[in-house]
């Protein structure tokens, strides 16, 4: 066995490119392990953990470090050559034929090239994202910070700075937005319309916007605030700014707010602003008591599905608003048919989610239907899994959580982790239902349902067949085409419903029935 490292000083490539290169290197003949990373402290630690390097390498955070472990020196040399070629190939080339054109090196140069720019979208490593955002604000631009690992102190400072010049900060950790119909980050192609969204959750925004689209309405603007915006320290600054933007936006008639329950004072402030903004506001603070929120012009929604329906009804000008939502479309006979092949040992649900908000919503709804569930990030600490790599009882996992994504791409892009877990859960004789989401749209895997269908097919064999219940968050205008995605899942034998709330209710009913005895 041979291990070689190579340092490319002052060469920078983004994390996604590097993961793709690492992935390609791993699959070369004779290679055991391979990695291409920026030599930050954190990344070096990962390499040491993986046993790829033992001594401290003389590499700076600005250097690109290639490490290859192979059977013999020949395969390692070949792989190194391949690595350098790939890295070189990723380099941006200036527009051909223009001697003097070279890509802008910073935001200020980019603004000179694109003087009508309104927004800077930042997805560089978190250590630098805050500084880049500050530059953008000082240059008079709005900011969307996709990056996470920005400190909460920096977040507060940025949002205060933004307020000085009336700018919007979406994020940090804001994965999704739709502005002027353009998908930003992980977002879907939805019809234009008069419903505006301000969301602290990316997948929440995706779900509501897609459902609104499927119900025949459309989105004016969908703004993200980042996951921590509604904490006490940040105070909901971006949500309030987003609210004000939508309140003043001529094309918006109905506003939807989505978040986990905010700190109490923050919720008060937000609701007060919302109530006075002059337009009806649907509020989905996942898990909050609806009565707490009830006031003039505020329409509390219990689930993302409910929020979408309320918004659509308000957009159409209907006075009578739905409390009772359509069920998942399966009657009792169909459920019994699903349950009957299951062996007696199978009685639990295993929720394997790529979207954090879906997993959270699932935990809330399931607790209501069948009792608390276990998780790596449960609703209450006593239900924390002893070993997150092994489910016990009813378990719901957010596979996009830091614990699972360390050194790995997010499950919305890379399916491998979920694939392995699906097989593991299917083999577990106690698993009755595997509950899952498929998130389509820009930024996601080009065929997430195809990947999931392959996993389902691999997991289904002989008499060990859990029930697969899932849904696709997307639209037909997305590159993946939602209908196509749904069809692939059904062809593989999954039960496909239209959204998370339906999937969870169906799952809850199945588990409850199993618990009652068939």
């Amino acid at each position, binding site marked *: 066995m041979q291990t070689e490292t190579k340092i490319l000083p*002052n060469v*920078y490539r*983004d*994390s*996604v*490119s590097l993961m793709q290169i690492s992935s390609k290197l791993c699959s070369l003949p004779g290679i055991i392990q391979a990695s291409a990373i920026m030599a*930050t402290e954190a990344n070096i630690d990962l390499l040491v953990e993986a046993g790829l390097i033992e001594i401290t390498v003389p590499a*700076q*955070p*600005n250097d690109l470090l290639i490490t290859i472990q192979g059977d013999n020196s020949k395969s390692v040399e070949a792989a190194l050559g391949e690595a350098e070629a790939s890295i070189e190939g990723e380099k*941006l080339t200036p527009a051909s034929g223009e*001697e*003097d054109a*070279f*890509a*802008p*090196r*910073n*935001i*200020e*140069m*980019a*603004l000179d090239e*694109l003087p*009508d*720019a*309104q*927004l*800077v*979208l*930042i*997805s*560089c*490593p978190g*250590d*630098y994202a*805050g*500084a*880049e955002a*500050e*530059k953008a604000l*000082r*240059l*008079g*631009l*709005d900011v969307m910070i*996709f*990056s996470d690992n920005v400190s909460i102190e920096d977040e507060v400072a940025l949002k205060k700075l933004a307020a000085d010049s009336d700018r*919007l900060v979406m994020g940090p950790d804001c994965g999704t937005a739709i*502005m*002027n*119909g*353009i*998908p*930003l980050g992980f977002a879907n192609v939805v019809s234009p319309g008069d419903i505006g969204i301000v969301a602290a959750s990316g997948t929440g925004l995706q779900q509501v916007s897609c459902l609104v689209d499927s119900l025949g309405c459309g989105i*004016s603007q969908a703004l993200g605030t980042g996951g921590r915006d509604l904490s006490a320290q940040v105070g909901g600054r971006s949500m309030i700014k987003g609210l004000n933007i939508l309140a003043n*936006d001529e*094309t918006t008639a109905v506003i939807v707010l989505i978040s986990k329950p905010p700190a109490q004072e923050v919720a008060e402030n937000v609701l007060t602003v919302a109530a006075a903004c002059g337009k009806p506001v649907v509020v989905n603070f996942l898990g909050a008591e609806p009565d707490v929120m009830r006031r003039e012009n505020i329409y509390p929604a219990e689930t993302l599905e409910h929020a979408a329906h309320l918004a659509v009804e308000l957009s159409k000008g209907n006075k009578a608003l739905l409390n009772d939502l359509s069920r998942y479309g399966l009657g009792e006979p169909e459920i019994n048919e699903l349950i009957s092949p299951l062996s007696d040992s199978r009685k639990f649900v295993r929720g394997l989610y790529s979207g954090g908000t879906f997993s959270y919503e699932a935990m809330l709804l399931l607790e209501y239907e069948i009792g608390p569930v276990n998780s790596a990030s449960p609703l209450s600490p006593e239900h924390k899994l002893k070993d997150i790599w092994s489910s016990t009882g009813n378990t719901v996992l957010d596979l996009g959580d830091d614990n699972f994504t360390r050194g790995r791409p997010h499950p919305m892009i890379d399916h491998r982790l979920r694939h392995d877990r699906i097989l593991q859960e299917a083999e577990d004789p106690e698993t009755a239902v595997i509950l899952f989401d498929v998130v389509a749209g*820009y*930024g996601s895997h080009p065929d997430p349902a195809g990947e999931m269908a392959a996993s389902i097919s691999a997991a289904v064999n002989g008499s060990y067949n859990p029930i697969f219940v899932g849904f696709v968050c997307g639209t037909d205008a997305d590159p993946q085409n939602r209908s196509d995605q749904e069809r692939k899942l059904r062809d593989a034998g999954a039960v496909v419903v239209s959204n998370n709330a339906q999937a969870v209710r169906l799952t809850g009913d199945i588990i409850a029935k199993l618990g009652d005895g068939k």
Partner: protein
Amino acid sequence: MTDNAQQSLSVINVGLASFADTINETGGTAVHVDWRPPAGGDVNVARALAGLVNNERIDSANRTAFENYLTAQPILKGIGRAGDVIPGMGERMILHSGPPINWDNVCGPVYGAIIGAILFEGWADNENTGKELLRSGEVTIAPCHHHATVGPMAGITSPSMPVWMVSDADGGNQAFTNLNEGLGKVLRFGANSPEVIERLRWMQDTLANVLGAAISSSGGIDIKTIMAQALYMGDEVHNRNAASTGLLLKQLVPHALRTGLPADDVAQAIEFISGNDHFFLNVSMAACKSMLDAAHNVPNSSMVTAMARNGVEFGIRVSGCGDQWFTTLAPVVDGLYFPSYSIDDAAPDLGDSAITETAGLGGFAMAAAPAIVQFVGGTPADAIRRSREMQPITIGRNTAFTIPALDFGATAAGIDVRKVVDTGIQPIINTGIAHKDAGVGQIGAGITRAPMACFTQALMKLSETPTG
């Protein structure tokens, strides 16, 4: 958000390129930034930088500093004895290039040149005695820059040497520089043999007399005009000075002939200048020094007013940071070496001549002298590209210096410390390379970059002062 709801969206993308692709595919416009962590990845510097971007007080100070630099008009006024005309020059003081350094730390060529100067002055008649003078402190050394002076390579200037005197017609500031000895075994490369000393004496007597009288007769020579013309003729007035030397000579000859000095002296002087294609370099440097001194000391300004090397360290000065030097180890230049020499023989970067780049000439005007890129195996297109590459890190352009190959565009000038750190584009310098041993001489030439560390240090200093 502005009022164009449902009109297109224009986005600047920093990070994952796929996000920019998505925006462009779905009807928006995205420009992807060729981003890398600023300042070599130092998070603290990155944060300090963010606070200074688009900062009104700095921008306004830079406007003032730059304006002062633009309106400076350096005039070659005459020749003087260094000890008599250079401010603060002690009678036992020797000036050297680059930032401050202790005499016992200097590199080979500089040490050799210091000894040579001591011998020339007659303070000692051998190296050991000379060294003793340094050790005892009876002879001190100081940076040229601290005394309104600049010098190429070792830049050694001693009291008895003749120096050019340059005056700014506008602001009245003065700049000085010694006379260029030519190529081969010369003091500025550390040679101190009797023939070197003899040449220095000839320059002190004959050359200085002729030049002094000629310039006096001329009433003063406008240096910027010569430099501007030379840029059209293949010079960049740092590493290419043949045209400018010729232009200077053209102006001097008629006056020299009318000085009434012995014809042979005049002939020797003219022959000397004609035989040295780099004679104008020192004049160019002094003119640039004069222009940049005019821009120096504007509070809050982030404009670089000096870049200089002493063969050990590379240092810069910034207008708003007073007399402070920001230094780091000087790099060894990887360029084109003369036969039988290689990078292992090279002294680290040396000389005050980077003052030309600081003023928007030299490497910044490389597009005017495409021959230079042969040092790095490049093409004339590369020369143009390098000049253009300097545009994003400068405050503006100097319309006094236009370059045909840039469509007669003006050269980029006024390095902004913030922009160097923010873009990662280091200022480019065309330079000669000296042998690391005293007295061997020039062994090559190349293109080098000012080290980033100097700029990050300066940036941290600028961020200390509250700038609102």
